[in-house]
């Protein structure tokens, strides 16, 4: 019988895999049976503290067996999981705790102390281990083994809330039902061809839907997860070799590091059969080196947004022919390219990507207006799907003759200059190709003559000069695209928690007329 909830997904592995290694930390391993016992103790404790069906429990624990046990304990108690990154500050933790109305906060001892000092009632705290000054509180590592029946939940009940730290404004919580979580696990297990013999390396936080999906897919197929808490290429390569890892998921900043390392110190990775990317575009210069570096591993480039988990992937056998494409809809998802007011885009045309299907989330926690804007019926699809709500990605893509999609730009970011519509991404790609810039952000600035002028902010590589960069642009771009101003940033540019350049902050920084940013 097929699982309907996150708990059932895990529990389906018992009893037959109770002796099989499920999780591997740096100094410790745990079988399915051992994790089951830990989760049961945590579930029992939460229930004894009054946590019931639908209550939210916040988890901020370093990657490891304890974190996973906590997640499974929370779901076993019938509560909604709110896992947030250990990089988040006490202020952010408090924001999330109040925003979602968390009954209990499962946190590291240091954070527990800070939260208690800042006025959070200790009765809401459950530290991972003994916290100085809060010795009276029970902690995760000391809970008694008590019998506890998992609280039954339905597929359409909430399983988790994923907080996205947007680059502007406060984080919003994306609500996922159990059905959402399971659909994500099943779809990915299918196209990655995951099996019981797989052993994934988990570097990405479980607070990220991409990272969490690594765990749920392994629970689905009965595989294992190796926890790698150190975001360093050398450590990752070491872990892949040591634990014979079969699959690695990462984001562009990490791929850049890993490829740099393996290019300068080639290392065969015989166990690695696939690698995946999501959360942004890998720069072309890194992408081009990957097939040579990962000789055996299949490369999966993927695209998605938290509000619908994942929308597309590029089949690995088309990586070379379609390098840079985001591919086509993942199993179970339907993706359409919509030309507003007209209809569905035809090959060669571009439009906004919308996503339909079981991965469409339940909306934002307590933000009905923001939800209604993001997840709504699509008039251009009424003939096909009626008023079924779809997720509007806000991304403009182009569809080619084969049905593969290519990212063009964020909907709101197109620059309108001299009557042309210029994609900042296209400007940035061309600037990256010069090999003179480490980071590039292109944007439009109000201009009386041009409508908007194209400008770029860059951090220069090595000995590169602004003049050389400008010369490259003049040679590589049509005249209307050549930046009117080049803002050279001497400091690394600000990034969001998921590694993407924080465009609004960079753009804002360029408009400050401080001596840091010199223009052409």
């Amino acid at each position, binding site marked *: 019988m097929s699982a309907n909830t996150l708990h059932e997904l895990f529990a389906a592995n018992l009893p037959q895999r109770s002796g099989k290694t499920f999780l591997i930390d740096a100094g410790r391993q745990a079988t399915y049976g051992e994790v089951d016992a830990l989760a049961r103790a945590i579930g029992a404790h939460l229930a004894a503290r009054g946590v019931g069906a639908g209550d939210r429990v916040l988890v901020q624990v370093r990657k490891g067996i304890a974190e996973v046990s906590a997640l499974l304990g929370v779901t076993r108690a019938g509560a909604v999981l709110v896992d947030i990154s250990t990089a988040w500050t006490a202020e952010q933790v408090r924001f999330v705790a109040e925003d979602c109305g968390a009954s209990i906060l499962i946190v590291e001892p240091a954070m527990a102390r800070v939260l208690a000092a800042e006025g959070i009632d200790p009765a809401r705290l459950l530290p991972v281990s003994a916290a100085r000054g809060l010795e009276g509180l029970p902690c995760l590592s000391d809970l008694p083994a008590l019998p506890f029946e998992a609280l039954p939940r339905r597929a359409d009940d909430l399983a988790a809330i994923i907080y996205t730290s947007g680059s502007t404004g406060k984080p919003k919580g994306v609500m996922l039902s159990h059905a959402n979580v399971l659909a994500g696990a099943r779809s990915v297990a299918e196209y990655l061809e995951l099996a019981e013999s797989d052993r994934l390396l988990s570097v990405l936080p479980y607070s990220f839907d991409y990272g969490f999906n690594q765990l749920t897919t392994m629970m689905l197929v009965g595989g294992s997860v190796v926890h790698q808490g150190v*975001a360093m290429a050398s450590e990752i390569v070491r872990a892949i070799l040591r634990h014979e890892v079969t699959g690695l998921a990462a984001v562009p900043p990490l791929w850049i590091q890993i490829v740099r390392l393996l290019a300068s110190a080639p290392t065969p990775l015989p166990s690695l059969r696939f690698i995946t990317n999501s959360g942004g575009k890998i720069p072309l210069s890194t992408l081009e080196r990957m097939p040579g570096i990962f000789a055996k591993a299949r490369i999966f480039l993927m695209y998605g947004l938290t509000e619908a988990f994942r929308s597309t992937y590029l089949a690995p056998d088309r990586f070379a022919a379609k390098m840079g494409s985001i591919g086509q809809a993942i199993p179970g998802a339907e993706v359409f390219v919509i030309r507003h007011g007209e209809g569905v885009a035809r090959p060669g045309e571009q439009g906004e990507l919308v996503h339909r299907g079981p991965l469409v989330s339940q909306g934002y926690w307590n933000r009905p207006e923001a939800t209604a804007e993001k997840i709504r019926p699509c008039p251009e699809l009424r003939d096909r799907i009626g008023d079924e709500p779809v997720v509007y990605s806000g991304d403009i893509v182009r569809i080619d003759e084969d049905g593969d999609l290519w990212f063009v730009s964020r909907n709101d970011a197109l620059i309108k200059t001299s009557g042309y519509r210029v994609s900042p991404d296209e400007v940035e790609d061309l600037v990256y190709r010069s090999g003179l810039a480490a980071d590039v952000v292109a944007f439009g600035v109000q201009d009386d003559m041009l409508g908007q002028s194209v400008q770029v902010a860059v951090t220069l590589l090595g000995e590169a000069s602004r003049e050389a960069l400008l010369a490259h642009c003049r040679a590589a771009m049509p005249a209307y695209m050549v930046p009117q101003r080049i803002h050279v940033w001497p400091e690394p540019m600000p990034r969001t928690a998921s590694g993407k350049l924080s465009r609004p902050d960079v753009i804002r920084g360029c408009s400050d007329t401080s001596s840091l940013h010199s223009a052409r």
Partner: protein
Amino acid sequence: MALTEDSLIRSIEEFAALHGEVDAETPLFSSGTLDSVAMLNLIMFVERETGTEIRAEDVTLENFDTAARILDFARKLAA
């Protein structure tokens, strides 16, 4: 060399949004405090301050896990 313990610690605190919590011996990567984004920013910062390029194989816990280790490593680079 432009890199000092102070400027390094201040940069780390900025990359990790941790103010007043980092000292010369605070484990940065083995503790999970800094992620891959912060790692990239840190490498670029050190490269700029020392005027050198850091080889990928040298980005290890031994050379980068604490501010003290980074300073030692940077001094060797500048020498």
